[in-house]
C-alpha cells in the first residue's frame, strides 16, 4: 500500500462543500453517540419530562399568576426555556471531553475544515434541542396544556431554538475554557440560580423589587414571555419596558449573546494553536 493507492486519495471538491460535508459527518458522529448511549438519551429527555411533571403537579396548584390566568400556561413555556438554557452545559461538557481527550487536536491535524468542529457541535445540539422541546410539549399537552397551533406555535418553537443557538457559543467557549469534564459539571451550580432569577417559574412582579428587576432583564425571561404570547397564553406579563417588548428582546437577546460569545469562542478555538 503506497501513498498512491487510489483508496487513500481524498476526493477533490470545493471548500464550501467540505465545510458542509465535514460538519455533516460530525453531526453524524454526535447522533451515533446518542445511539450508542441510550442511557444518555433517557437522561437528557427524561430530565425535561420529569421537570414538567414535577413542577406542573407540585407547584401547579399553589402558584398564582398576577392578573389571573392559569399557572400551567405560565409554567410550561418557562420549563421549555429552562431546558434550552441548561443546554449550554451539555455543549460545554461535550466540548471539554473532546478537547481534553485530544480528539479536537486530532481533527485539527487533519485536512478537514476546522470550523466544522464547532459547527458540527452546534447543529448536533440544535437537533437534540428539537427532540427535547418536542417531548416536553407532548408531556405538557398530556397534562392538559393547550397552546394555540399555527404560526404562533412555530414562532415560539423558533424563538426557543434561537435562544439555544445563542447558548451554543457560551457552551463552546466554556468547554474550551474549563480544564476538565468535572469542572464542566460544576457549571450547573452557576446555571441554576441564573435560570431561577427570571420569569420562568414566578412572575417578576411577585419578587422583591430589585430582584424582580433583575429577573425581568434576564435574557431568558424575554424568551419565556414571548413564547407565552405566541402560544396564545399571554399570562403573567408585567408592564416595564423590557416586559412589554418581550418579542423584540426574545429576538434581540440571542443576537447580543451571539455577538459577545461567538467571537470569544472563536478566539478560544484559535488560541489552541498558540
Amino acid at each position: 500500500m503506497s501513498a498512491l493507492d487510489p483508496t487513500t486519495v481524498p476526493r477533490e471538491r470545493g471548500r464550501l462543500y467540505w465545510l458542509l460535508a465535514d460538519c455533516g459527518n460530525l453531526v453524524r458522529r454526535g447522533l451515533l453517540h446518542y445511539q450508542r448511549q441510550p442511557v444518555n438519551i433517557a437522561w437528557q429527555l427524561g430530565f425535561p419530562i420529569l421537570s414538567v411533571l414535577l413542577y406542573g403537579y407540585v407547584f401547579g396548584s399553589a402558584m398564582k399568576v398576577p392578573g389571573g390566568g392559569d399557572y400551567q400556561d405560565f409554567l410550561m413555556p418557562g420549563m421549555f426555556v429552562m431546558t434550552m438554557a441548561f443546554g449550554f452545559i451539555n455543549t460545554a461538557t461535550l466540548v471539554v471531553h473532546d478537547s481534553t481527550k485530544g480528539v479536537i487536536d486530532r481533527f485539527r491535524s487533519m485536512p478537514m475544515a476546522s470550523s466544522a468542529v464547532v459547527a458540527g457541535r452546534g447543529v448536533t445540539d440544535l437537533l437534540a434541542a428539537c427532540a427535547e422541546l418536542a417531548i416536553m410539549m407532548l408531556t405538557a399537552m398530556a397534562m392538559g396544556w393547550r397552546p394555540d397551533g399555527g404560526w404562533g406555535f412555530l414562532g415560539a418553537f423558533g424563538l426557543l431554538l434561537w435562544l439555544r443557538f445563542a447558548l451554543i457559543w457560551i457552551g463552546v467557549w466554556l468547554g474550551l475554557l474549563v480544564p476538565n469534564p468535572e469542572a464542566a459539571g460544576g457549571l450547573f451550580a452557576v446555571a441554576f440560580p441564573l435560570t431561577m432569577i427570571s420569569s420562568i417559574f414566578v412572575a417578576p412582579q411577585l419578587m422583591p423589587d430589585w430582584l424582580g428587576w433583575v429577573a425581568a432583564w434576564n435574557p431568558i425571561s424575554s424568551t419565556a414571555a414571548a413564547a407565552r404570547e405566541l402560544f396564545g397564553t399571554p399570562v403573567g406579563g408585567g408592564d416595564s419596558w423590557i416586559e412589554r417588548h418581550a418579542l423584540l428582546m426574545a429576538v434581540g437577546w440571542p443576537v447580543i449573546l451571539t455577538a459577545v460569545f461567538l467571537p470569544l469562542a472563536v478566539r478560544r478555538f484559535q488560541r489552541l494553536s498558540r
Partner: protein
Amino acid sequence: MSDGHAVRAEGLEKRYGGKPALDGFDLAVREGTVHGLLGPNGAGKTTAVRILSTLVKLDGGRAEVAGLDVARRPREVRARIGLTGQYAAVDEVLTGRQNLEMFGRLFHLGGRRARARAVELLDRFDLTAAADLGVGKYSGGMRRRLDLAASMILAPSVLFLDEPTTGLDPRSRGEVWDSVRALVAGGTTVLLTTQYLEEADRLASRITVIDQGRSIADDTPDGLKDLVGGDRVEVVVAERAELPRVVKVVARVCEGEPETDEEALRVHAPVTDRVAALTEVARTLQDEGVAVEDIGLRRPSLDDVFLRLTGHRTGARTTEKEAAAA
C-alpha cells in the same frame, strides 16, 4: 523534498509565557526512516511534534514537512501527515470501526471508501475481533493501535508518534513496536518521541537527543554509544542490602566511578581493561561472599549517553550516593 529529508526544522523557537519550550531546535529526518526524538520530561518533544504537525504556531525558525513549509501551507501538510499524540485521541464512545469510518470520512474519502479502509486497517492492526466493541472497553494497547490505524488512513508520508508506548504494559508495547515496524516497511517516515531509551534504540535508525528545547546530539544509536566510549562491568545482586558492598568493590577495581540502579539492583562502572577487570570484580565479590545474580560486560546504554551529554539523568534513577544512603 529535494534532499531526501521528510522533516527538516531549523532554529525552531516556541515560548510559553516568556519561558522557552523550544530554543533553537534543529532536526532533519531522512525519508523512509524511523527517527527517534529522545528527551526527558519537559524537554520540548511534544512542542516540536505539535509545531511540525501544524497544531501550534512557531515563534521563530523554519520547518518543512514533506517539502512543505508548515507555517505557510498547513492544509497541504495536514493531507500528508498522520499524528498519534501523547494521549490516544480516539472517540471513546464509538466502536473501533465507527472511529475509523468517521476519520476516513473526515479525511474526505467518502462513505464507501471510508468503510473499506476501516476494514483494511482493522485487519492490519489486529483489531477485527474487537471492531464492533466500544473503544471504552479497549485495553491500552488496543486503543493505541486504533490510534495508529486512524493516523494511517491516508497512508501519510510522515507519521508523528508522540510517546506511543508511555503507560503501556510490556506486551502492549511490543504490539505497538511491531505495528511501527510494519509501517516503515510500507515506506512511511516516522518521527517518534520517547523517554524510553530502549525504544529509541530498538526502532530508530537515527536519534536526536533533545534537552531544554535544544537538540544536543544527532547520531545513530551506535554512534551515540561510541560517544560515551568503553564498555562497562555490570553486577546485579539479589538483595538490596548487598548494593553498598558491591559499590565498594567495583570502585576499587574499576577506573570509572560506579553507578547504581537501585530499581534493577545493579551496579556498573566503565572499564578499559575489560576482561581483567571483570575477573577481578568477580573474584573479589566471591571472596567477600556477596550473593551475585549476574555479572558481565555490556556496551554503554543510551541512558549513559544521556548522562554524558546533559549531566543529568533521564529518569528517576538514583545516584551512587543516594543508593549508599538508602
